[in-house]
């Protein structure tokens, strides 16, 4: 059973550029959440997608946007990159039976902004 997968593994971008990160949820899961984890910190909730719509959003600016596809996979887009956006971006999936509290994380995409 494939777990949560994310691509790419690593990414280096320049300030002002745009980036798209991708996530495929665990089999049987239909809800995808995105988190930002700065070095030495716990993950911070960006937003959650369910039924192709943003269901809840954390305290992140509009530069962060997302999308969920009919097959439940998801994308995270970040525009106008800042140096402070350098972090590990984690995708987590959950199933409808547990209301989303048991979340399973992917390995993450490490984004470096120079």
């Amino acid at each position, binding site marked *: 059973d494939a777990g*949560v997968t*994310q691509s790419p593994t690593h990414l280096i971008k320049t300030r002002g550029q745009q980036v798209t990160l991708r996530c495929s949820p665990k089999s049987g899961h239909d809800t995808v*959440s995105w988190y930002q984890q700065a070095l*030495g*910190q*716990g*993950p*911070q*909730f960006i937003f*959650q997608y369910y039924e192709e719509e943003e*269901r*809840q959003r*954390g305290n992140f600016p509009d530069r962060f946007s997302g999308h969920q596809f009919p097959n439940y996979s998801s994308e995270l887009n970040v525009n106008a990159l800042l140096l402070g956006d350098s972090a590990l971006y*984690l995708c987590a999936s959950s199933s409808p039976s547990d*209301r*989303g*509290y*048991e*979340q*399973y*994380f*992917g*390995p*993450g995409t*490490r984004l470096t902004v120079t």
Partner: protein
Amino acid sequence: QKEVEQDPGPLSVPEGAIVSLNCTYSNSAFQYFMWYRQYSRKGPELLMYTYSSGNKEDGRFTAQVDKSSKYISLFIRDSQPSDSATYLCAMTQYNNNDMRFGAGTRLTVKP
């Protein structure tokens, strides 16, 4: 004051020791409590999931929640070198998907 406080360590113990990891929190509305293990350069792995107060045991791991004190703990018995990782506590409210994490405690178990 952060909403979830967790001692970052590092914590170093000999193999076979009992490890105690803790978090405190300020939001009394939190009802769901999780512990994650994160190896270096990997995503967090769900270890324990607890609803409200009480204890939950799974193999060598025991999670405790004391809502009256706003304090949660994870105990690891017979610790192994493979337990060396960063342990993150996480919690959220009913019907709220914004899960709040502690900063993580880095644990090293020495053979």
